[in-house]
């Protein structure tokens, strides 16, 4: 990549900044060059976000049909997956999966729900009332 080939597409996914790419300048030296963004990167980041949104939407549908619990929805909504959520909670994956069953979820006490809520950085009532909000 030459210095003038460093993409300058004007948008960075990570925030208000440039990113460094290494490129070859006219003297053949490889130097750091600030890039204002590359569409390929933006696309990948958006696709990742979309994928999680899609999973969240599917989970929402399952909650509505009484096949899953709001925990699954919030997990995807906040960009987590099962292994990470389980580790964050300090529970086994099997246990977290269990909490995603509607009948088990109904019986969960406030302490555990509070832990989930703290992790998602939302209020407990939001998890509790999620299903009511769907109907």
């Amino acid at each position: 990549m030459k210095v003038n080939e460093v993409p300058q597409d004007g948008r960075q996914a990570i925030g208000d900044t440039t990113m460094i790419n290494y490129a070859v300048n006219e003297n053949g030296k490889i130097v750091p060059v600030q890039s204002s963004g590359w569409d390929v990167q933006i696309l990948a980041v958006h696709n990742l976000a979309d994928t999680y949104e899609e999973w969240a939407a599917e989970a929402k549908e399952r909650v509505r049909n009484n096949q899953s619990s709001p925990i699954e929805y919030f997990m995807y909504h906040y960009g987590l997956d099962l292994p990470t959520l389980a580790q964050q909670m300090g529970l086994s994956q099997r246990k977290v999966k269990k909490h995603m069953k509607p009948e088990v979820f109904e019986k969960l006490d406030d302490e555990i729900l509070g832990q989930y809520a703290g992790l998602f950085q939302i209020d407990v009532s939001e998890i509790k009332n999620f299903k009511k909000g769907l109907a």
Partner: protein
Amino acid sequence: MNIIQKVTDYRIIQGGHCETGGVASIVTNHGFDLSEPMAFGISSGITFFYMPLVRIWNNPLISFRMAPGAIVRGVQKRLGMQFVIKRYKDKEQAMKELDELVDSGQPVGLQVCLSYLTYFHPDFRVYFNAHTIIIYGRDGDEYLVSDPAFDKYTRINREPLIKARFAKGVNAPRGFMFYPVYLSSDVDYKSAIKKAVKSTVSMMLQPMLNFVGIRAINTVARRIEKMHKGADIKQVRNFLTHIVLFQEEIGTGGGGFRYMYAAFLQEAFDRLKIPSLLEASKMMVGVGDLYRKAAVSCAKIIREKQKVYDLKIIADQYRECARAEKEVYLLLKKIDWR
């Protein structure tokens, strides 16, 4: 050269990658001239891992560089520096020691989880544990941050910082912290570069495991090709997205660190004047270009959401990367270091 001196004006040194950039930035601010590519190369940071069993974002772990922490340790070992490297169990203890250090004028590097860093764009606040930031000061409840990926100073509150330092999951930071305490003034670059290159070459060319080195690139290519049968387009797009993210987005300096490694080889040539190093550097730039091209092809499939897609092309492009990269290491292997 013993460094106890305070760093009063922390200069931002933006890096292509967070950990190499962080190490280079903190050491340079202490008056030891270390470029990011040198930090990366000298710690044998370049690699290729493909681990189907370790899942990140519901996809296999694909890594173009060594695990977090390896670069700090590599730099310290090869360049005769001394870092204090610590992990913590106790959050309060970790924050207390951070406060004391920062107040005494010692900038500190931390490993953190991206999703709690409030200054990142909300779209990008994904769950990713292997990010490095430098804390260089404190203003009340706010910490002054020099994030190597950013071109400006930022700030973060105490609460999110605690969460970020003690996030769990793959590559959990567990409060990882580092700062230099001793910088050697005369470094034997020749033996350091020799060791670094040799270790990289033997890892990348290893013939045993199909998930490390050149063999791993071929494994990924095979995996891409296999998806052609049966897999639905969504799955394909997710996997390709995953590759592009790890190759380009998470701060690699472009081309999955290959350009950065080329810069290291060039710097090594400037110091040692061994012609093969310059030759290898030029070849490595070519390898980086191949990776960029493959990323563009991936993007095409991700963007067009088409039903008919040709994965064979992408698989072949990655095979081409593997082949070209192998040439570079074979050349490096032949170098006569005497």
